[in-house]
C-alpha cells in the first residue's frame, strides 16, 4: 500500500528541518563572525569582507537564508496560532517550554525583521541608514553606533536570548519529531544538552554584542588577540 503524505505532514517536516539545517547552521556561523569583534574593528571588518567574497553569495543569501527564514517564520506563526495554551492549569515544565517556543518564535519574527532591516539593509528610520552589506569597511562602526543606543542594545540582547533558546530547544524538538530520541531517559539527556547549548549560545552572542561597545566584550581583555602581549621569547613554558 502506497503511503500518502498530506500537505500538513510535508510542511511540518519542512518546518522542522529548515529550523535546523539552514537556519540553525547559519546562526552558529553568525555568532562565530560576530565574536570576531572581540579582536577589534579591523578583525571584524575583515570577517565581513570575507563573507562578501563568498562565491554565489546572493544565491546563498536568498535560498540558504531568506527563503527558509520566511517559510520557517510564517509557517511557525500559523502553527502557534493553532495552540490552545493551558500552562496555567497544567504547569509542567515541558508545557511551559511549549509555550516559550511559540512566544520566542513570535518575538523573533519581529526581532529578525527589525534586525535585517536595521543592519543588513539600513532601512529603519531614525536609526542606522547604511547597510552593512556592501560596506564591509564600515561594518564595525555601523554596529557600534547602533549599540551605543541603550534600547537598541536591550532589544538585541533579548533577540540573542530568544534565538539561543528557540534554537537549542528546537534541537530537542527535532530529535523527538524525527524519532532520533525516543525514551524518557534519552529525552532528559537531550534536554539537558539543549539547556547547556542555550546558555552557551546566549553567552557567546551577548559577549559578541558587547564587543562592539567594549574591547573583548564581557571577557577579560587578556584573552583577546588585539591586547595580548607577545610572549617573551626564551621564557620558561611552565
Amino acid at each position, binding site marked *: *500500500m502506497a*503511503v*500518502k*503524505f*498530506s*500537505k*500538513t*505532514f510535508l510542511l*511540518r*517536516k519542512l518546518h522542522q528541518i529548515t529550523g535546523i539545517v539552514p537556519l540553525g547552521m547559519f546562526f552558529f556561523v553568525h555568532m562565530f563572525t560576530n565574536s570576531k569583534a572581540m579582536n577589534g574593528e579591523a578583525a571584524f571588518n575583515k570577517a565581513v569582507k570575507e563573507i562578501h567574497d563568498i562565491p554565489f553569495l546572493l544565491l546563498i543569501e536568498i535560498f540558504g537564508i531568506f527563503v527558509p527564514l520566511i517559510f520557517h517564520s510564517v509557517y511557525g506563526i500559523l*502553527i502557534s496560532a*493553532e*495552540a*490552545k*495554551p*493551558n*500552562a*496555567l*492549569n*497544567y504547569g*509542567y515544565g*515541558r*508545557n511551559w*517550554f*511549549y509555550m516559550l517556543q511559540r512566544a520566542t518564535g513570535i518575538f523573533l519574527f519581529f526581532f529578525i525583521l527589525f534586525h535585517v532591516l536595521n543592519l543588513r539593509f539600513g532601512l529603519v528610520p531614525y536609526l542606522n541608514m547604511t547597510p552593512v552589506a556592501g560596506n564591509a569597511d564600515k561594518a564595525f562602526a555601523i554596529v557600534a553606533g547602533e549599540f551605543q543606543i541603550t534600547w537598541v542594545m536591550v532589544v538585541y540582547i533579548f533577540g540573542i536570548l530568544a534565538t539561543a533558546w528557540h534554537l537549542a530547544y528546537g534541537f*530537542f*524538538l527535532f530529535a*523527538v*519529531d*524525527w*524519532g*532520533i*530520541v*525516543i*525514551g*524518557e531517559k534519552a*529525552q532528559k539527556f537531550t534536554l539537558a544538552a539543549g539547556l547547556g547549548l542555550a546558555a552557551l549560545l546566549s553567552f557567546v552572542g551577548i559577549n559578541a554584542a558587547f564587543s562592539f561597545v567594549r574591547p573583548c566584550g564581557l571577557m577579560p581583555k587578556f584573552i583577546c588577540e588585539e591586547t595580548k602581549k607577545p610572549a617573551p621569547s626564551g621564557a620558561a613554558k611552565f
Partner: protein
Amino acid sequence: MTTNAHIEKKRLETPPATIKFKIQRREKEGAQAHWETFELQYRRNLNVISALMEIRKDPVTIEGKQTTPPVWDMSCLEQVCGICTMVIDGKVRQSCSALIDDLLLASNSDTVTLAPMSKFPNVRDLKVDRSKMFDHLKQVEAWIELDGTYDLGPGPHVPNELAQERYAFSRCMTCGCCLEACPQYGDDNYIGPQAIAQARLFNMHPTGKMTAEDRINGLLGDDGITNCGNAQNCIQVCPMSIPLTKAIYETNRDITVNTLFGWLKK
C-alpha cells in the same frame, strides 16, 4: 501521578464544616453554560462521585434555588473504565478516584470546581460525548486482522520484553485525559496521543505488523502525528501511566526511517 497514587491516602487534619461544589451546568448540547454552587456537610472519605450523588438527592444551590440534579457519567468506580473523566479544579482526571481530602489539601480551600472536558461535545452538565476517540481508533485501524477466508493459524510467540511494552499501551481506557490536556488537540486538527499509542500497540504485534502501513497512513493526514507539539501533558495526566510520548516518538522514527526515507530502499 501513578496508577496506585490513591494508596497513600492523605487526610485533612482540620476539615471545614461544609464544602462547596462549583459545577458547570449546561441544559443540553449547544445551550449556554452557567455555574451553580452547592454546599455539602463535610464527611470523611468523600470522593467527587459520592459528593455528586449527595448533591443530586436534593439539588438546591447555595442561594437556596431549587435546580435540576447534575448529570454525569460513571460506571466502574475504580478508575478502569474512564467514563467519569471530568475537569476537577482545572485538571482533567477521573472523578471516582478524586478524593475530596486530596483536592482540598491541594487547593488549600473549601471549594471543589467541576467542569466537563472542554475538547468533547458537552451533552449535558458534566457528561460529554467521546465518540470522536472511537473515530480516531478507526482512522488508525487499531485492531488486528484475524481470520479472513481461511484460518491464519495461531499468532507467533512474542518476547516477554515486547509483551510488557505492549501491555503498557493496552491499558488505555479511552478516557480522554490526554486529549483534554493536549494544547494541540481540538478543532479536529490533531488525532491526539490516544490513537497514536493504539496504532503503536497494534504495529508492535507480530500479526498487526503486517498491516502496519495502513495504520501509519492514518497518521500521515492533515490531522496526523506531525501536529504533536511536544508539550508532553499527555504523559503527565494519563491515569494509566501509558508511555504516550514514547509511542509518538517511536512512531516518528518508524515514519522517518520507513516512510519518509523509504524510497531510498527502492
